[in-house]
């Protein structure tokens, strides 16, 4: 069921408020459906992962970014190309670990949390956890296993929003058994 449209490299933009409010409605619904915040975080991560797995194709098709040679290049592409393309923001890349396998994305503004204030009874909810899943899923599709988590979040009173990313390993391409 592919739909042939005149797809251009420049992706279409829309007002971020519908996106923000829709995400808000989704998180609200998850909070109603699940018993505790950890379950909601897990579900958000899972949905993000599914998005990431699909998003990477869209990204590669539109961005014409080639293969990254090291993790530093990957970090730059994520911050300067991917975030800009999808969320209209450009986080800064900082706090590299000495080994060069771990860094932070600092988000000055986060379109997901416009209008949002966390109630006291959801203190362990990681509201934007979807983003972690998206990054994990997308990178997994280009053979990189990473660990992604929120280190700081303006919703919890921190000054900035910080996503910490750690490179775990390169995934070897193994053909599934029986699949020639």
């Amino acid at each position, binding site marked *: *069921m592919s*739909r042939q449209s005149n797809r251009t490299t420049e*992706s*279409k*933009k*829309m*007002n*971020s*408020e*519908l*996106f923000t*409010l*829709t*995400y*808000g*409605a*989704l998180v*609200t*619904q998850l909070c109603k*459906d699940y018993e505790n915040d950890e379950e909601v975080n897990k*579900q958000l991560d899972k*949905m993000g992962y*599914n*998005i990431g797995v*699909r*998003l990477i194709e*869209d990204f590669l098709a539109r961005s014409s970014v080639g293969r990254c040679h090291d993790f530093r290049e990957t970090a730059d592409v994520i911050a300067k190309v991917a975030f800009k*393309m*999808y*969320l*209209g923001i450009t986080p800064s890349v900082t706090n590299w670990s000495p080994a060069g396998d771990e860094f932070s994305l600092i988000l000055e*503004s986060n*379109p997901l949390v*416009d*209008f*949002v*204030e966390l*109630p*006291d009874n959801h203190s362990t909810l990681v509201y934007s956890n*979807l983003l972690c899943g998206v990054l994990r899923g997308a990178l997994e599709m280009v053979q990189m296993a990473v660990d992604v988590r929120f280190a700081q979040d*303006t919703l919890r009173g921190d000054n900035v929003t910080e996503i910490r990313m750690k490179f775990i390993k390169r995934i070897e391409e193994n053909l599934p058994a029986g699949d020639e």
Partner: protein
Amino acid sequence: MYSAICGIKIGELRRLRSPNDEAHVTRKRNSGCLLQNHLIPKRQRMDTRFTRGKSAILERSLTRPKTEVSVSAFALLFSEMVQYCQSRVYSVSELQARLADLGQGVGASLLDVLVLREKNGKRETKVLNILLFIKVSVWKALFGKEADKLEQANDDDKTYYIIEKEPLINAFISVPKENSTLNCAAFTAGVVEAILTHSGFPAKVTAHWHKGTTLMIKFDEAVIARDKALDGR
């Protein structure tokens, strides 16, 4: 989301009351809980989030620079939402009901912010005006354009249609044959229903495949009766 919108109301109220008078602002802030108690339903009054002092969100302006995200990002998010809803229901109508529920959350929040931002806090009292508000302001805020058409049913004065040839919501959704009645614009129907209901025009809104996507709005009898009474004056 509810609390956030309360926040906006209160923040805006402060701004409106004393745009320049700093001393006044401080005084209001100190007696903040008093002011807030009027705006918040009784059952939430003791909630500490409203009384623990100012939150950054209250200080933000309502008219902010327009920010944009990519349509792909929204499409992927919406697709996940539909799949999530689908995993928890047994029928198409249940699925549409769940999507409409999600839309209601969006509509309720959006109504508050639009009324304050574009209407200076005034709300519509006439059926036709609220429908035009939806067709123009709401649609522009959500989809960046007016709705294609607004029509009234020939034989029924409580039924109206908002017709959208190619709704953004459905742009990337292909409906499987076995569920051909499913229209994910049920989400938009939820948004419209919440906006009408919260504005004092209780109605049922459903999405149908007709000339693209048609949202059918059926107002409560009382709404039409009131509108006619207002016309008579």
